[in-house]
């Protein structure tokens, strides 16, 4: 088979990360790339290197000015960060205070999920590992909050699995990684329930 069995039914967490890495995030560049038209003319012979990209917007990169925030794809931000060329502006929800608010919401509403961004778990994990010094609060405390959120939500998800049926489920505000983790179980059971009910469907048709 041209695609390994494990990838035929679901995505790997790395693939989910890849998808999320295309989302935009704000950075503080530490370098200036933008040059004035005059500067460019002067060095027309010796070409200044430009970014030319095929998967992400190149304009913000070519217009980078040190300390002026701009927005680039997450993977680019991480790469520039790795090279010491920028710091990353963490998303506003990634603070102890905000996360605590989400935790409170999750606890208060056992039947619902807070509207964290679809990519919260991936973004948090990537920034913890690769841009810890850009975060507002100590990373070990933030990690703790994210872990709490994950556990509370997972508990609720598992409660919700009792609702599996042969018709459909609505799962608003579940993040992309949480969905992916659940996928084999949810689809496996629901497809079997569907087959089970389909076995007597003809009788209903006749009735």
């Amino acid at each position: 088979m041209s695609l390994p069995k494990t990838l035929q039914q679901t995505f790997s967490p790395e693939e989910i990360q890849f998808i999320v890495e295309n989302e935009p995030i704000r950075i503080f560049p530490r370098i200036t790339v933008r040059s004035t038209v005059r500067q460019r003319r002067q060095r027309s012979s010796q070409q200044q290197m430009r970014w030319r990209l095929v998967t992400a917007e190149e304009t913000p990169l070519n217009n980078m000015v040190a300390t002026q925030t701009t927005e680039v794809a997450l993977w680019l931000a991480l790469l520039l960060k790795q090279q010491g060329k920028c710091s990353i502006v963490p998303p506003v929800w990634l603070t102890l205070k905000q996360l605590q608010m989400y935790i409170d919401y999750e606890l208060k509403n056992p039947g619902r999920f807070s509207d964290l961004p679809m990519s919260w778990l991936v973004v948090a994990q990537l920034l913890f590992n690769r841009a810890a010094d850009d975060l507002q609060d100590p990373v070990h405390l933030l990690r703790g909050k994210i872990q709490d959120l994950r556990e509370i939500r997972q508990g609720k998800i598992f409660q919700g699995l009792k609702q599996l049926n042969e018709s459909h489920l609505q799962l608003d505000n579940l993040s992309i990684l949480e969905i992916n983790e659940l996928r084999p179980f949810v689809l496996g059971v629901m497809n079997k329930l569907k087959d089970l009910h389909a076995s007597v469907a003809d009788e209903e048709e006749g009735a």
Partner: protein
Amino acid sequence: MYGDLVNKLVLEAKRAQQLNESSKSEHLPMYQDDLVRNTLREIEQLKRDAELLKSQQELNQVEDKVARCQHFVTLLCMERNKRGLLAYQKLRSDTLDAMAWNKHGLDSVTALAAGEGADASLSHQEEEYLKDYTQIIADMKSGEFTDIDLSGSLTPPSDVFIDVRVLKDAGEIQTEYGVFNLIKDSQFFARQADVERLIQQGFLQRL
């Protein structure tokens, strides 16, 4: 009982399938030549029975119903045998496909070419099939997909450059982008795409 023989074959297939699933790689146990041949023989026998029944029926006009019941049984036994045989062979060819897409394909094809395939677990026809399929893949990779490397890694690129350690001495290795001198336990910083193959082949380990 008719169909018992082919059941053994299907159980054999089930075992192979389980082994591949638990080890997350492809193995092919020895091709069950005897079982396949004996099952085919059983089909021949059934076919003779069916013809005998038919001629008897034409001769002495036995109770129509009884003859047809006997006839059905032989027919179903033949069908069952056919399904088992095809499923056995199909599972094996699927495994061969998977092998051809990863390094095992290269290895086994090279081994076959070098005449080491004599005691292999493949049947002669399977060797042929693997060779043909490897050629199809090679042709797929050329033309408009030349730049894509279709048999390359299905793990998303997370870092362009990675640290690697050399696991075994291999002297100088020529890659698309330059020469690496592989000395055991040395470490270097390389473009991931350049060393992907060497990692797959077990020369390098990603750090």
